[in-house]
């Protein structure tokens, strides 16, 4: 619950206590009746008793002429609560003492107790209440409203449990017995239902109140100070401008170690993904001499704090799957860096031109340690990882919850491949070979993709004799014409079209087929920006889906 949600809830509770107190204190006034007649009573409140109560109230107002109500209710009130015209005992006397003392008398122990409690708060009965005693239901309910206002949850819980709930169930049972109107019977149900629910609610609020605030607002300069503080234990990475120009002649944005909020480029898609931080383009696996190998080490002990958008966070799960799940085997080079990653999710304020994350179902994520919204001069932060909370002790709390975009300019329709035979058809479409003239097999699309994981290994020697050196691994790319080449020059996939088919099916079919949960592509749009031949991957998917649907149709006709 956010602080504002808690506040609204408390206001509502306070009003409800006041309202109930008023209903019990006197007969209804004409103006109250006028208001009640027009109320649409809630349904499905989550409490069966309250639902029944509201139902009775509704029925009462539907079945009665306004003009007749005041007298009807006044009459019932007098009979039920004041025992007017009744022999003693046939009423619901609204005093706790009556229900908790053996003799069923007013002004017994309970009355003394509540007076003591009110006394501690230096409270005394209003003059307008001079005709009733302190353990009257209306006074006790008013006291609850008072405690709500003071926001003292513990006092509310104690008073509710030791006093109101101790007698109210029997009292309301009597109302049902002695009242002849749906109105007071309904009020009886509402009272019991509400008080029971409130006891549970207070408990929830207590737990929520114990949990520290998790959202904060702070000036950029204060956040800069935090970044500097984090830098002692983390490499703080975020998309930032680097030298160079993209294919669209825009300045290049790449994940870099940053020092301050103003370094972060948060409002456009980066040209490269965050992948290179936890899965470096090139990394040394081990060092060797002629007779032994020695595993490489990380350059330092620092962890990594990475500012990333939801698409990249979702992509992380895909690379996790390949490196840590596929074949039940874990790649330790990946894991040793991956375990060090903490995520700061950057809210997307708008969809970038080439993104199609909504179609790929990766526009949202709740997998983060902190989430941020950039807001001109201030930062809004939601903290999930409690270990970061201490950093925000001095910060102003807020209601901030990250929002997600729900629409892109670009959309894709995925193919519906339902069988091995249909996959055969999808894989052998002429459509694929149309890429032979267009794609130059540069592999740029794989390089920028946050979900591409393929690599080659490469041995490097330090001296002429070649007795000492290291084995590295380097990103590879399924779009390169040598990707499947074996000794002797044979290639399993021979044309750029074959490669495009392989990549496309991998991204929007194979991966999901193998691992179940989701497609590999997260629709980040980077490959679309990157391609020197203007091959858009979203267009490629859509073109494939259309060609496949047509082929299916033609097959059906035959």
């Amino acid at each position, binding site marked *: 619950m956010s602080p504002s949600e808690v506040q609204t809830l408390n206001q509502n509770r306070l009003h409800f206590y006041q309202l109930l107190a008023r209903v019990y204190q006197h007969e209804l006034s004409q103006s109250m009746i006028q208001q009640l007649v027009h109320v649409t009573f809630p349904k499905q409140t989550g409490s069966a008793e309250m639902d029944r109560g509201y139902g009775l109230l509704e029925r009462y107002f539907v079945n009665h002429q306004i003009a007749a109500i005041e007298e009807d209710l006044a009459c019932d009130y007098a009979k039920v609560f004041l025992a007017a015209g009744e022999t003693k005992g046939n009423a619901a006397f609204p005093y706790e003492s009556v229900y908790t003392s053996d003799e069923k008398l007013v002004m017994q122990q309970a009355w003394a107790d509540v007076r003591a409690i009110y006394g501690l708060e230096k409270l005394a009965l209003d003059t307008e209440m001079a005709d009733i005693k302190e353990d009257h239901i209306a006074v006790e309910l008013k006291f609850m409203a008072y405690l709500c206002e003071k926001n003292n949850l513990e006092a509310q819980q104690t008073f509710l449990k030791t006093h109101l709930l101790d007698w109210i169930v029997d009292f309301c049972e009597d109302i049902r017995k002695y009242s002849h109107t749906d109105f007071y019977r309904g009020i009886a149900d509402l009272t019991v239902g509400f008080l029971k629910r409130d006891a549970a609610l207070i408990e929830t609020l207590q737990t929520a109140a114990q949990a520290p605030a998790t959202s904060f607002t702070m000036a950029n300069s204060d956040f800069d100070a935090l970044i500097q503080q984090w830098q002692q234990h983390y490499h703080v990475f975020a998309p930032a401008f680097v030298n160079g120009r993209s294919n669209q002649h825009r300045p290049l944005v790449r994940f870099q170690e940053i020092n301050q909020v103003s370094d972060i480029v948060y409002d456009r898609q980066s040209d490269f993904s965050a992948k290179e931080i936890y899965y470096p383009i090139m990394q040394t696996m*081990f060092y060797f001499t002629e007779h032994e190998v020695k595993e490489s080490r990380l350059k330092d002990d620092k962890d990594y704090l990475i500012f990333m958008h939801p698409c990249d966070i979702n992509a992380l799960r895909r690379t996790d799957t390949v490196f840590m799940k596929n074949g039940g*085997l*874990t790649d*330790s080079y990946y894991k040793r860096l991956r375990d060090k990653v903490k995520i700061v999710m950057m809210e997307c304020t708008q969809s970038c031109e080439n993104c199609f994350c909504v179609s790929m179902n990766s526009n949202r994520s709740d997998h983060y340690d902190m989430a941020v919204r950039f807001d001109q001069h201030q930062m809004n932060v939601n903290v999930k990882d409690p270990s970061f909370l201490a950093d925000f002790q001095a910060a102003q709390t807020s209601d901030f919850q990250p929002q997600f975009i729900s629409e892109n300019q670009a959309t894709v329709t995925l193919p519906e491949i339902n069988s091995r035979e249909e996959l055969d058809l999808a894989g052998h479409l002429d459509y694929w070979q149309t890429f032979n003239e267009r794609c130059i097999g540069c592999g740029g699309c794989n390089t920028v993709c946050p979900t591409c994981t393929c690599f080659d290994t490469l*041995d490097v020697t330090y001296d002429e004799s070649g007795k000492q050196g290291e084995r590295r691994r380097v990103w590879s790319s399924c779009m390169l014409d040598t990707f499947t080449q074996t000794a002797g020059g044979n290639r*399993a996939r021979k044309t750029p079209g074959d490669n495009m088919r392989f990549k496309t099916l*991998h991204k929007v079919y194979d991966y999901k087929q193998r691992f179940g949960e989701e497609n590999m592509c997260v629709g980040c749009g980077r490959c679309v920006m990157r391609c020197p031949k203007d091959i858009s991957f979203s267009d490629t998917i859509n073109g494939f889906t259309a060609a496949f649907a047509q082929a299916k149709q033609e097959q059906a006709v035959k």
Partner: protein
Amino acid sequence: MENIMLPEPHQILDVVKETQAEYTFRVAYDKPTQYNQFFQLSIPKVGEAPISVSGKGNGYLEFTMRKVGRLTEGVFGLDKGDTLFMRGPYGNSFPVADFEGKDLVVICGGTGMSPVKTVLTHFMDHPEISKSVHFIVGFKDINSVLFTDALKTFSEQPKFRTTYCLDNSEAPGFHKGFVTQYIKNVPFADFDDYNVAIVGPPMMMGFSAQECLKNGADPKKIWVSFERRMSCAVGKCGHCKINDTYVCLDGPVFNYTKAAHLFD
């Protein structure tokens, strides 16, 4: 944590020259392996490549390698007593337990014989669990013939029907022509229950399987072993992936009913 990419040094116990371009290396090794599994062999500074176990015995494994590129050339420079780095074993194997008590057809080409050699040896050593072994192997020419001694011993086994052939030439003990030409001699119709294992270059495997089907073989009883480019052998590098299948993890052996549907 365990590093699945880290090779271990193993000593070379012996080197046997099979042909001009193919050597068998006997390497000290004492853990269990299955039939047709492979290892990533590597020489620091040169690289790493998948090589099948072609023979095994007490405390050793054998690898038969064809000199085709950087790594295999590097290995050829090694000698008895030198160190070879390996990690593995990887991959699945032929369902050899299922082959027992039935007729077995083995069709292979060139180095493709290495991975099935241990299977053949198994049935030779245990004739009581074998009904018959029909073994067809082809080599390019007489200079490319591998495992000459083993070929001779196999041909002498009462339960073995062997057919050895050379692509374009004849020689004593060898027919002329491709293995596919001799598949029609396999009496599939007479078999009660049987299995077919095919290993070799991709084209050869495809045509051989077709030929078996033409001769009445049941696709469910045919097993093929795929050779794909591999960098990691542990499902990470992506090189061996075909459709949703990783050859290094799910193969290299596939039943033909699955293999026929995989496309590159």
